[in-house]
């Protein structure tokens, strides 16, 4: 392969470094009206009355909207395929507010100061309601967040709002209780994971204008332009053909932009004022009023025989979806579906639980999407089991983990909100990943611990993980390739580049197939008018699903080119050879450039353009083994990661350096979740971590040495053997680090983050 599996500079890297016009706010019209949102100061309240007269009368204020201005049409903000597996439980604006930071009203004014002043002039009479602030007592709580009659699920997801349940699910293979009874060793442990904030560097941003065709044109920093367009159309009753959503460069998403954020209020204001307007979230609004990761409680039970055979897994989950149910069911299901198959040879496995509403910032999609929570629980539980079995944790995993050519019955049962899809592991290099990872971390010399004097000790720990490559039978991607005069191509894709360089790698796939170089492929993405359909950047779908669509399109283009070259040279196609630049046959040749000019200017003229689509019938998981070396201060519990080694099987890496970048960025986010990051809420429901001073993400000095490698692997159903790589990197650090701490100092942290204080307390109590 000349282009794929090669390092290639990204298409937009230089332009982004030079600070050229690129991100959403860069495209806001001059003199846009500035939108500011009045947000609830109460975690749960009914708006008895809202008086906006003074706000409207303020000079410079052009629009003020409250719940009284909208018909009651429920929708979901979740950026998912239709019909969405998330409940339709949100109104544009409601007479009930359900978390501190929830939307009460929106103001549009000529400048920010006026808009802010107008917010202060809005008078709201709240009737305070008893908030639900503990997800463990949310179900059947007397206080019901969503008693509204209009809300509904789109298909059965276990939606039971009267009990504050947004979704629930249950499945069992075999008989877990019976199997556990027959096991030699059974361990039980309950784990808790915290809410985590995406902390992408670009705050959520969107802007709108009416163009010369009187259509609503929105720029948005979004992962799902297609879903944004559809949901706006449904909720605001605008014909979908009158809306255009454009996603320019995005300054990070990680799932935090896989939903409607400001676009709903923006579009509503634009429709009424017919003026250009914009809404840029403050960092506080990003923390408080966008989304964070679903906090979860996972009760694990594992049963094994003396010889180390894992026989049963039971995983019962309680997930906190916050005030609204975006991604409630699907994140929760991934906690099982993209974790439990790691130990596919068990006799029985059970997974189930509820997702409950609470009066907190809504939970939503975040890289890993349930798999990181489930991985923490399962891979920690496995180490606990190994201790009880007196068995080496690596040996245990090698004995029980998924292998190439195998499958798990869970794949067929658990999909994303629907039934799953059975699949064999065509490619699974876990054994290599584990063995190589051990070498990288020097496991043999460091396991379990190496003391450093009286006060410090170093330990190593590990975890394995899997994720997916798109949602089978649901995620559809398409690509259009157009030949231009001059012999170069336009590749238009719906696939959403949010910084993961999908434009670049999709261009590489096309270039490889067309036997040319990336500079000959101009990639345009994510404009609902100009690019073909793609569900968007989530579920690790881009490389595999969008990549396959691009590959199909490139193959179709080649077929078309051969047809035209054959006609132009008057030679049968099978006598022609093509090297990407020139078609050659016996005694005759024509360059692609000459052919294109002929096609557009001179003879037999026609536009050569192809569109192909792809829907996966499988979701071949990438796999990873993650190894952590930590240093723990015995006296204070302070812990840092010295080294983190990962070996990933994602099939072919389309671009090895961008893939490595994806893995390393994800690993650091995982380390953040393991050790540092914590969304803290006061007992009265107020967010305490609404800025980077109180919500600490890892800095350059907190990252130890990262050792990142890829396994030689090839997934035959993927484009040039590729699987996706976007999320897998985040999954292992919580368990690997918790295991390393346990190996270092003998304490088991079961609720994240593993703060120094928790470690210290556990050491004291031992």
């Amino acid at each position: 392969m000349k282009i794929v599996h090669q390092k290639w500079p990204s298409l937009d890297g230089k332009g982004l470094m030079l600070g050229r016009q690129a991100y959403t706010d860069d495209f806001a019209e001059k003199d846009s009206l500035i939108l500011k949102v009045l947000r609830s100061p109460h975690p749960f309240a009914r708006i008895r009355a809202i008086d906006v007269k003074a706000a409207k009368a303020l000079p410079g204020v052009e629009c003020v909207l409250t719940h009284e201005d909208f018909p009651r049409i429920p929708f979901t903000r979740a950026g998912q395929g239709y019909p969405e597996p998330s409940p339709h439980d949100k109104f544009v604006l409601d007479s009930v507010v359900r978390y501190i930071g929830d939307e009460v009203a929106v103001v549009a004014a000529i400048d920010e100061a006026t808009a802010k002043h107008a917010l202060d002039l809005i008078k709201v009479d709240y009737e305070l309601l008893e908030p639900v602030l503990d997800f463990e007592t949310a179900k059947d709580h007397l206080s019901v967040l969503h008693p509204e009659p209009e809300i509904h699920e789109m298909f059965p997801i276990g939606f039971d709002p009267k009990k504050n349940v947004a979704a629930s699910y249950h499945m069992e293979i075999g008989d877990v209780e019976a199997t556990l009874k027959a096991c030699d060793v059974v361990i039980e442990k309950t784990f808790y994971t915290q809410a985590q904030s995406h902390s992408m560097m670009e705050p959520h941003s969107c802007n709108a204008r009416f163009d010369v065709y009187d259509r609503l044109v929105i720029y948005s920093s979004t992962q799902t332009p297609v879903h944004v367009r559809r949901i706006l159309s449904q909720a605001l009753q605008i014909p979908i053909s009158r809306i255009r959503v454009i996603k320019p460069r995005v300054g990070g998403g990680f799932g935090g932009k896989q939903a409607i954020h400001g676009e709903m209020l923006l579009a509503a204001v634009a429709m009424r004022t017919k003026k250009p307007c914009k809404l840029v979230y403050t960092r506080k609004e990003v923390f408080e009023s966008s989304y964070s990761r679903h906090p979860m409680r996972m009760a694990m039970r594992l049963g094994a025989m003396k010889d180390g055979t894992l026989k049963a897994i039971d995983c019962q989950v309680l997930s906190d979806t916050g005030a609204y149910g975006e991604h409630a069911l699907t994140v929760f299901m991934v906690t099982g579906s993209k974790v439990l198959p790691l130990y596919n040879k068990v006799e029985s496995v059970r997974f189930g639980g509820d997702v409950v509403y609470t009066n907190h910032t809504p939970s939503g999609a975040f890289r890993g999407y349930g798999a990181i929570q489930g991985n923490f629980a399962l891979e920690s539980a496995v180490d606990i089991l190994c201790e009880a079995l007196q068995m080496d944790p690596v040996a245990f995993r090698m004995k029980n983990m998924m292998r190439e050519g195998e499958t798990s019955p869970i794949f067929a049962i658990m999909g994303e909100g629907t039934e799953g899809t059975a699949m064999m592991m065509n490619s699974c290099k876990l054994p290599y990943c584990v063995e190589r990872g051990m070498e990288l971390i020097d496991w043999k010399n460091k396991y379990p611990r190496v003391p450093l004097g009286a006060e410090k000790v170093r330990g190593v720990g590990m975890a394995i993980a899997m994720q997916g490559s798109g949602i089978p039978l649901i995620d559809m991607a398409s690509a259009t390739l157009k030949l231009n005069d001059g012999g170069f191509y336009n590749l238009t894709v719906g696939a959403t580049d949010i910084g993961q360089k999908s434009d670049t790698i999709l261009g590489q796939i096309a270039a490889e197939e067309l036997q040319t170089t990336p500079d000959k492929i101009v990639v345009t993405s994510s404009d609902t008018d100009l690019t073909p359909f793609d569900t968007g950047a989530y579920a690790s779908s881009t490389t595999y699903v969008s990549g396959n669509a691009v590959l199909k399109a490139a193959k179709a283009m080649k077929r078309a080119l051969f047809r035209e070259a054959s006609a132009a040279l008057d030679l049968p196609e099978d006598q022609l050879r093509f090297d990407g630049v020139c078609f050659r046959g016996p005694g005759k040749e024509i360059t692609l450039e000459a052919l294109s000019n002929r096609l557009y200017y001179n003879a037999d003229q026609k536009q050569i353009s192809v569109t192909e689509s792809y829907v996966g019938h499988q979701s071949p998981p990438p796999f990873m083994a993650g190894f952590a070396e930590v240093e723990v201060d015995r006296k204070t519990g302070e812990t840092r990661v010295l080294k983190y080694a990962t070996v990933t099987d994602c099939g072919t890496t389309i671009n090895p350096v961008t893939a490595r970048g994806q893995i390393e960025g994800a690993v650091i986010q995982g380390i953040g979740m393991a050790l540092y990051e914590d969304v803290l809420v006061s007992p009265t429901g107020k967010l305490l971590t609404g800025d980077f001073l109180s919500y600490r993400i890892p800095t350059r000095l907190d990252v130890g040495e990262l050792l990142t490698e890829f396994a030689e692997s090839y997934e035959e159903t993927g484009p040039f053997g590729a699987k996706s790589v976007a999320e897998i990197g985040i999954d292992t650090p919580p368990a690997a680090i918790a295991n390393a701490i346990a190996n270092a100092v003998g304490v088991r942290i079961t609720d994240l983050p593993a703060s120094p204080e928790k470690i210290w307390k556990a050491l004291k109590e031992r």
Partner: protein
Amino acid sequence: MTMNIGTYLKPASLDEAYAALQLEPKAKLLGGGAWLKLVDADLPAAIDLAFLRLSGIKETVEEVRIGAMTTLSEIEASPLFSGLYNGIFRQAIHSVMGPSVRNIATLGGSIMGRFGFSDLLPVLLVLDARLKFFKHPELSIGEFMEMKTPPRDILTQVILPKHKAQGYFHKVTRTALDFALVNVAILRLDSGYRIAVGSRPGAAMLCQKAMNHLAFRPLPDEKTMVEAGAIAAEECRPGSNQRASADYRKQLIETYVERGLREVTRS
């Protein structure tokens, strides 16, 4: 985001600045501006000190005098502080945020707010720094910290005695840019030990009882150092906040005072 500044004054002299400060009770002095947005979204009146030439580092035989508007970066870069007191003053300054914030944050601005999270205050306490104001009589940093209300005056200079001393400074944080869970400064002089703890989460204080425990023992033994740590932890009366509980802070203070004493007595 524009700050709402009612009236902005760019005084040409200290007299003018001082007079304006007394005239308008709501007026605030503008130092480096690094912490401005944390404290005030709107300022009815602001008096800018940036143009009054209050920066600069002067060394005499016995002291170093630092202009209040000297940026933390300028202090960090001065060769004077790499050796003085084992470099703990420089070390504390270096631990404040990142270089670009230190390029605008000033020494005066870092002191006047008496912030609990300050990394400089514990070091200034053990150094027994003195604060020179425009009109108000000179204050020791200890006196300044104990005042109910700080003087409504302009801090012009901070004076550091040039102690020949072994110093220790440690800031306990989770990530490199975090505020301290606690920070500890120790100075070992010929005349005894000075120990200060900050970010308790309350503002820094001298640990007088611990210091007394160490008095008359030029080289304390292990047991005494451990005791001093425990005494310091107790007398600091640490509190709980979202960063740490009081009990954990106690452990941190105990441990790091002990470790600090070990380090300054090593040579």
